[in-house]
């Protein structure tokens, strides 16, 4: 394929990936990796390197677009990030000793199973307000954000221990499989910690950037971050993330959860297909 066509294809796909990723709190690898490997015939290692670029670009691009509408909960994100980064390092260290195929099959299956509780609360706009107690109270894991119509939404986090355990698993998966595992982060915050959906996706967005930055140095030094791929991916994602963020701040939590459920199903299928060796 000629350079200009390669650039344009990847740029346009990345705009879509950035928009979707910034809405549901994932890194965009879901779209970028198969476009590169299946459609453009690029080596999987370069595709994973591109996925790291796409995760950081989604995270920072969305954050830069939000300056006015603060939905991200920095406290909850930072608290959970201790577990995610630890998990990611352990995962990267033991990756060589485990079979990626089996891991992909297990993770894909977990995602499919988690569709059940997610679909059960598909129509829930705001979680019923939880009592702030225990560790969540000690760390003051609560917050509020203002909807576009001016309503102030207050919420308290619950089950911080479960959330932390979920994030350790999310980090392990990131380190082991080289994927962002934003889906698992959103699930932990939505199902275990009972945060409003938009708080879960934007906080996941913050976290995936930090986790990806932790491993990006290794991929870059190895030569897995190919500049010909990096340029259209980074530029497309930054533009897409800005578009997605503008949609997100106006969207209903139920709409975001519906889009997330579809993305979750697609990630699960992609992982299982990969595990089956196609």
């Amino acid at each position, binding site marked *: *394929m000629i*350079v*200009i066509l390669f650039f344009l294809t990847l740029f346009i796909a990345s705009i879509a990936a950035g928009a979707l990723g910034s809405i549901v709190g994932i890194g965009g690898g879901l779209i970028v990796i198969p476009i590169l490997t299946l459609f453009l015939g690029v080596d999987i290692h370069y595709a994973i390197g591109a996925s790291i670029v796409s995760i*950081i670009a989604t995270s920072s691009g969305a954050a830069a677009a939000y300056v006015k509408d603060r939905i991200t909960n920095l406290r909850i994100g*930072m608290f959970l990030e201790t577990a995610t*980064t630890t998990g990611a*390092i352990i995962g990267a260290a033991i990756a060589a000793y485990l079979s990626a195929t089996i891991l992909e099959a297990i993770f894909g299956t977990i995602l499919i199973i988690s569709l059940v509780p997610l679909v059960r609360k598909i129509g829930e706009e705001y979680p019923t307000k939880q009592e702030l107690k225990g560790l969540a109270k000690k760390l003051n894991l609560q917050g509020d954000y203002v909807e576009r119509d001016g309503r102030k939404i207050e919420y308290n986090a619950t089950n911080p221990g479960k959330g932390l355990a979920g994030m350790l698993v999310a980090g392990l998966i990131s380190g082991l499989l080289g994927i962002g595992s934003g889906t698992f982060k959103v699930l932990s915050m939505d199902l275990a910690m009972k945060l409003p959906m938009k708080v879960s996706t934007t906080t996941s967005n913050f976290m995936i950037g930090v986790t990806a930055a932790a491993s990006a140095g290794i991929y870059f030094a*190895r030569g897995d971050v190919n500049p*010909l791929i990096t*340029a259209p991916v980074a530029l497309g994602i930054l533009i897409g993330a800005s578009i997605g963020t503008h949609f997100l701040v106006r969207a209903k939590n139920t709409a975001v959860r519906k889009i997330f459920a579809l993305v979750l199903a697609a990630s699960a299928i992609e992982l299982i297909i990969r595990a089956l060796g196609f």
Partner: protein
Amino acid sequence: MNRILGIVLRVGVLLSGGVIAIGAALFVANHSLDDTSAYLQYNPGLIPHGNFPVSLASISSGLLSLNPFSIIALGFLVLLATPIVRVALSLFLFAAEKDRMFVYLTATVLAILLFSMLATPLIPLFNG
């Protein structure tokens, strides 16, 4: 402080996007009809796996000769710095709020982040 964090993020993102766009424009201007296969070779036996600059020395020497791939790599490094700066600035944010617990938590995240960025590439266990 929250506003400073927002401004720093925005400047970082615009700067990195701008630098990458310059590199991409330079490359496309001269190579738009090249076949991509020459640039997408992956050599599993060699470190680095591709034939583009990955060390700070080769990137900076490439910048002097306006090598598009060095410029794109520089833009990527700026992008990579944004989440790290975000965590570092949050540390000051929590310190200003006198939230000691969160200063510790954020310092832990920053330490793990710097450890994995600086130390892990040197540990054979992490080099697959």
